[in-house]
């Protein structure tokens, strides 16, 4: 055992202590106590680690337990009906699910290219002394609480879109067959497009910082070889850096998607909270998280509450799958870089 090697030193330590010396500390007793402390500390940390798993298990069990009444009442139909009527107690989840997916899709459509371009700028073009400040500034965007995005979106961004951007979109796309449906209706200001745009700003820092990190991990030799062949900066980024970091970039994008799907407060302010599916992205809609945030405290009746918790369960399952896929990809990347 290790303790036999330690004994002499512990001995020295305790004999150096005049109090211990005088009291003739029983060495065996001290060693015993140290060993006990060691064991209990190890056990304590292990329990705390297991607690993380317990939290996850608790969330799943609590959500399933809470949503049982709704699932029993509606069964699989809960997932595919679009009625949401507290008076007749008929609930279906398809409208919020649709809103969640559409807003997240709009967000990713904008945030992915912009985030990747910023990462290219930060790793290839930006002068060294500016890299850190710009990187931190972009990351501060992630630190701003989502309620701030919400209040800003409601009072500043939505009116701006309503007056300047949305009339333009309606005028430009009004004549084109398919797109005219997508941009139909009066400019409300609030709606799915606004929510998607705000989500785009919110997930931008996640995509940027992960892409930048994986771009920086590309071996310089690969890039130098391409530059040596006469490639332009864009060609190096597009045909050398991006293929090499594909897994990591996809991981970062999925992480951003997970955020966008679950984002609550910012969306709640600007989505309009209308339980319907409209083809137009200018129309008000709702998302899973916005529905819960808006209606939970006012929900009366077990079935209503339980339906909202069932929505939460659906949201958790979707984000869990997306985030697990993201983490799996980033893990794989780390294993490759490490190996």
């Amino acid at each position, binding site marked *: 055992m290790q303790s036999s090697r330690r004994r002499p030193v512990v001995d020295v330590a305790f004999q150096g202590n005049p109090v211990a010396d005088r009291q003739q500390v029983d060495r065996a007793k001290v060693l015993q106590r140290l060993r006990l402390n060691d064991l209990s500390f190890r056990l304590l940390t292990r329990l705390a680690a297991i607690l993380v798993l317990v*939290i*996850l298990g608790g969330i799943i069990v609590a959500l399933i337990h809470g949503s049982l009444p709704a699932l029993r009442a509606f069964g699989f139909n809960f997932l595919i009906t679009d009625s949401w009527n507290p008076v007749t107690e008929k609930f279906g989840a398809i409208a919020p699910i649709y809103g969640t997916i559409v807003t997240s899709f709009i967000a990713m459509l904008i945030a992915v290219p912009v985030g990747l371009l910023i990462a290219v700028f930060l790793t290839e073009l930006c002068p060294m002394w500016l890299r850190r400040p710009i990187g931190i500034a972009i990351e501060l965007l992630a630190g701003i609480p989502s309620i701030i995005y919400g209040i800003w979106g409601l009072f500043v961004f939505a009116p701006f879109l309503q007056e300047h951007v949305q009339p333009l979109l309606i005028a430009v796309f009004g004549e084109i067959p398919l797109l005219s449906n997508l941009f139909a209706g009066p400019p409300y200001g609030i709606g799915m497009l606004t929510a998607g745009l705000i989500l785009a700003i919110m997930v931008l820092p996640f995509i940027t910082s992960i892409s930048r990190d994986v771009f920086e991990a590309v071996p310089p030799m690969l890039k130098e070889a391409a530059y040596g062949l006469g490639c332009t900066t864009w060609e190096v980024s597009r045909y050398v850096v991006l293929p090499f970091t594909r897994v990591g970039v996809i991981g970062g994008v999925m992480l951003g998607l997970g955020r966008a799907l679950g984002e609550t*407060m910012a969306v709640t302010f600007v989505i309009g909270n209308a339980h319907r599916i409209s083809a137009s992205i200018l129309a008000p809609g709702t998302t899973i998280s916005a529905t819960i945030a808006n209606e939970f405290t006012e929900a009366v009746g077990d079935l209503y509450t339980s339906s909202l918790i069932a929505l939460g369960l659906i949201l958790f399952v979707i984000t869990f799958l997306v985030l697990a896929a993201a983490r799996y990809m980033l893990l794989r990347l780390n294993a490759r870089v490490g190996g």
Partner: protein
Amino acid sequence: MSLYDTRRRRNTVMMGFSFGATIFGLAWLVLILAVLLWEGFSGLSLAVFTQMTPPPGSSGGLLNPIMGSLIMTVIAVAIGTPLGMLAGTYMAEYGRYDKLSMVVRFINDILLSAPSIVVGLFIYEVMVAQMGHFSGWAGAVSLAVIVVPVVVRTTEDMLTLVPDTMREAAVSIGLPRSLMIQKVAYRAARAGMITGVLLAVARISGETAPLLFTALNNQFWSLDLNAPVSSLPVVIFQFALSPYKDWQALAWTGALIITLAVLALSITARALAGQRKSS
């Protein structure tokens, strides 16, 4: 020659785009902060910090939500930090490569970015529904659930950075492993671990979703954690969506206070972490 020109032109265009994208990203930060300062600063006065939230139509302050937020944040950190630190210690010191750590690491990373409103529902089910009423305790616990993954992650990362030679030196002079961790590893990783706690505080001080149906809200002065407690983010939510002008103005002021606090916390955390790296 024309192929060369095309490639060069494409490069210029794409690099222009990437420059533009960076300006685009930074512009939002500037825009949001500028509007916040513009709208919030005019309402900033001593009354904000000394008076209670007013009924619509009269003036008042944000004292009770500020106090509520502070109290719940302190309790959440007091519960979440030790748990997170112990779990991170296990993963970095005892079972760095064992199966349990791998699973916990994976799950923890997922909890780190799980939707916070789901945490609210979870605490509603286990605490509010069982106790039969909304309470400050439920709010604090739901915030603690958000603190834990942040602290676990940073503790593990920072302990992993501590050189193994330091551990070996400590063990070789006879320190038991638990004492080695507490006296040597923790001390070496202290700056990083404080950074983690600061980041966790920054994260929860703006959280609204988990408080909506755990701590609820309270228009009056109340330090009773068994009753609904007011909090700054929830008050901003309620006031901003109200039709009253003076409530909206207070919401902007509250938003400014939160943002300044959060940004100050995260910049401090970054400065601490950066200091470590350069030294």
